[in-house]
C-alpha cells in the first residue's frame, strides 16, 4: 500500500462515513426520544434517492402511494382514538395534521412528476415527500406501543422495515438507479483528486451536524427533545408531551434520511433494498456511541466508513466481516465501561411502569 493509496482510501472512507454519520445521528435521535431502534431508517433513505431518480427520469415515484396510504391509516387511527376518548372537537385538527398536511407534498410531486424539473426543484420535492413518512410510521406503528419494552419496539421496527422495503420493490422495481450528479467539479489536492460530490457530502454532513447541535443547545424544542431523552416521566411532569416530541424526532430523522439519500444517490447505484445495509452499518457507528452520544456516534460512523474502505482494499471478500465483526470488541468494551446494557433497559422499564 503506497501513501497515495492510503490517502485515497481515507478520502473514500470519510465520504462514505459522512453518510453513516447522518444516518447514525438519526438513529440515535429517534432511540433517545422514543426508545425505538428505527431499523427502517435506511429504507426511508433509499426512498429519498429512488424518488429523486424517478423524478429525474420523469416518472411517477411510488412514494406518493406510500404517503397516501400511511396518511389514511394514521388519520383513521387518530380519529378512532379521539372518538374513544370523547374528544370529537379535536377531529378537524387531527384531519389537518395527519390527513391533509402529508398530502401537500404528495400533491406537489404528483403535479410535478413527468415534467422536466431543474435539479434543485427535484431535490426539494424529493425531500418534501420523504418528510411525512417517518412521522406517519411513528403514528401508525410505534405510538400505540409507546410504553412497550425496547425489544418489542425493535421487533415492530423490523416488521416495518420488511413492509416498506417490500413496497419499495413494488414501487421502484428490482433494478438499481443512480441520480444525476449535483456537481461535476473535481479538485486536485496534491497527489490525490477529490470529487466535488464527496466534498459536498462531507460539508453537508458537517453542516447538518452543526445545525443539530445548535438545535439541541439553543432552542426550546431541542431542549424538550433532550428532556424527553433524559427522563420521559420528568419531561411529562414539566409539560412536554412525549408523543409530540416523538413526532418531532421522527420528522427530524426523516429529514436526515432525505438528505443522506439525496447526497448518496449520485455516488452509488441504489436498489430498493440497499438502504437497509447502509442503515445497519450506521447502526454499528451508533453502537460505538453507545446509542446515547451524538459526537461519539459521529466519530463511530466515520470509523466504520474508514474501516470499510481499508477492509475492501485488504481483503474485499471479507469486508462485511470486518465491519460487523468490529461490533464484538465494541460491545465488550461498552459493557466493561458501564456494566450490563440489559440492566439499563430493565431500569428504564421500571421507570416506565412507575
Amino acid at each position, binding site marked *: 500500500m503506497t501513501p497515495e*493509496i492510503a490517502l485515497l482510501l481515507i478520502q473514500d472512507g470519510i465520504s462514505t462515513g459522512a453518510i453513516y454519520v447522518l444516518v447514525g445521528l438519526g438513529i440515535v435521535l429517534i432511540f433517545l426520544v422514543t426508545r425505538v431502534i428505527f431499523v427502517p431508517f435506511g429504507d426511508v433513505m433509499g426512498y429519498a434517492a429512488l424518488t429523486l431518480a424517478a423524478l429525474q427520469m420523469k416518472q411517477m415515484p411510488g412514494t406518493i402511494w406510500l404517503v397516501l396510504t400511511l396518511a389514511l391509516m394514521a388519520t383513521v387511527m387518530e380519529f378512532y382514538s379521539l372518538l374513544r376518548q370523547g374528544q370529537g372537537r379535536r377531529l378537524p385538527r387531527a384531519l389537518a395534521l395527519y390527513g391533509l398536511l402529508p398530502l401537500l407534498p404528495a400533491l406537489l410531486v404528483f403535479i410535478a412528476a413527468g415534467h422536466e424539473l431543474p435539479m434543485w426543484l427535484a431535490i426539494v420535492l424529493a425531500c418534501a415527500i420523504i418528510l411525512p413518512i417517518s412521522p406517519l410510521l411513528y403514528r401508525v406503528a410505534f405510538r400505540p406501543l409507546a410504553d412497550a419494552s425496547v425489544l418489542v419496539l425493535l421487533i415492530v421496527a423490523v416488521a416495518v422495515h420488511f413492509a416498506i422495503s417490500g413496497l419499495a420493490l413494488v414501487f421502484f422495481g428490482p433494478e438499481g438507479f443512480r441520480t444525476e450528479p449535483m456537481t461535476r467539479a473535481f479538485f486536485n489536492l496534491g497527489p490525490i483528486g477529490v470529487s466535488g460530490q464527496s466534498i459536498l457530502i462531507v460539508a453537508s454532513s458537517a453542516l447538518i451536524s452543526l445545525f443539530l447541535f445548535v438545535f439541541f443547545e439553543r432552542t426550546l424544542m431541542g431542549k424538550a427533545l433532550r428532556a424527553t431523552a433524559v427522563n420521559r416521566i420528568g419531561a411529562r411532569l414539566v409539560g412536554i408531551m412525549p408523543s409530540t416530541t416523538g413526532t418531532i424526532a421522527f420528522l427530524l430523522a426523516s429529514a436526515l434520511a432525505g438528505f443522506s439519500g439525496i447526497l448518496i444517490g449520485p455516488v452509488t447505484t441504489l436498489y430498493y433494498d440497499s438502504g437497509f445495509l447502509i442503515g445497519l452499518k450506521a447502526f454499528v457507528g451508533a453502537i460505538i456511541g453507545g446509542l446515547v452520544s451524538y459526537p461519539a456516534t459521529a466519530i463511530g460512523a466515520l470509523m466504520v466508513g474508514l474501516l470499510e474502505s481499508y477492509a475492501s482494499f*485488504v481483503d474485499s471478500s471479507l469486508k462485511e466481516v470486518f465491519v460487523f465483526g468490529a461490533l464484538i470488541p465494541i460491545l465488550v468494551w461498552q459493557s466493561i465501561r458501564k456494566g450490563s446494557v440489559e440492566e439499563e433497559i430493565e431500569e428504564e422499564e421500571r421507570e416506565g411502569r412507575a
Partner: protein
Amino acid sequence: MLSRLCLAVAALILLERGSIAADLTVGFVTSLSGPGASIGIPYEKGILAAHAFAGKVGDTNIRLIRLDDASDPSAATRNARKLVQEEKVDVLMGTSGVPGTVAMAVVAAETRTPTISLTPASQPQSPNGQWLISIPQPPPLMVAAVIERMKKDNVKRAAYIGFSDSWGDLVYDAVMQNAPAGSIEIVTNERYARADTSVTGQTLKIIAAHPDAVITGGSGTPGALPYLALAERGYKGGLYGTHALINPDFVRVGGTAVEGVIAPTGPVIVAEQLPESNPTKKVALAFREAYQKANSAPTSDAFSAYSFDAWLVLLDAAKRALQKGQPGSEEFRAALKDAMETTSEVVGTHGIYNYKPGSFFGVDERARVLVQLQKGKWILLQ
C-alpha cells in the same frame, strides 16, 4: 394468489376440453413476482410468444399451464408437484432461477417427468436417471470466448472483480480454467456484494496491480459498479464482462463508463447484425416477430429467447416421441425423455442444440458471439 388464478383458469380450460383426449401438456413455471421477477417476466413473455408461434405438434394440440413461483425454490417445488400430480403434465419447463430449477429437477427425476431447464442448471444425481436438459449456454463456454478474445487483444495481465456470491465464484473458476491456456495472468481476485455502495478499495488494488484488462463477474445493474469506479479513477485498459451484464438497465446505469465493454452473448441479441450464413439468424428473426405479435412490444433480452428455444427443442422431441405413445401416459414421458436426450441439430435462436444422454447442456461454440458496447448499443464483433 396468481398461481391459484392460473390454476383455476387452467382447470376451466381442462373442463371445457375434457372431451378432446391426449393433448400434450406443458407445465411452465417462472418467477413473476419477488426479487427474481426482472428475469422471470421475460421468460413468461417468451413462452407466450412460443405458444403463439406453434400451438401444435403434428395433429396434437399443446396445452400450456403457467404458474408463478414468486422467486421461491420451495414454491417451485410445490408448483412442480402440482403440475405433475394434478395436471399430469408431459413435460416441465422452468424456472427462472438456478436454485428453483434444481428444486424442480428433484421432483422431475422422482416422478419421471422430462424437464427442460431455462437456466444453466443441472440435475442432482437420482436413481431414476437423468430427466433434465438445460437450454442456456454453460457459463464456462461463454467465459472461454472472452478469454480467447483477450488473448487476441494481447492482454498479458488481467484483473478480476466479481460478486461475493456463487456467480462471482463460477465466473472466477471459469476464468482460471481458461486462463493458463491463454498465457494470461490473473492478477487480482476482488469481490463485492450486490448491494455495496462503493468499490473504491477494490478498484485501487486493481489499478495498483497494473493490469492490461479487467474482467468482471457481476450481473445486471450491480455489474456496472466496478466499471463506474474504474472510469472514476481514470483507468484506460480493456474492459471485459460476461453475458450476465447484457440488459438495458446495465447500459442505463453504466452510461459512458461502460462504453467499450466486451461480453459474450447468444446470437439472438444481435440477430439483425448476423451474417446471412448464420443458421440462427432466420429463427431469431422469426422469434422477434412472434414475440412482437404475442406481447405487442419488441424484445431486448436473452431470457425470452431461452423459453422459445426450449419450445423448439420440445417440438422436435415430441414429434419423435408421439410415434411411441399417447401424451399423458408413462410411456410417452419416457419416450419424450429419450427423444430429448437424442436431439440433434435443432436450430434455435441462441444456437444449435445437440443433446446426448449424460450431458445436461446441448450447445457449442455456435451459441456464442462477442459483442461490444458502442454508443449505448451492443455491436457484434467479428
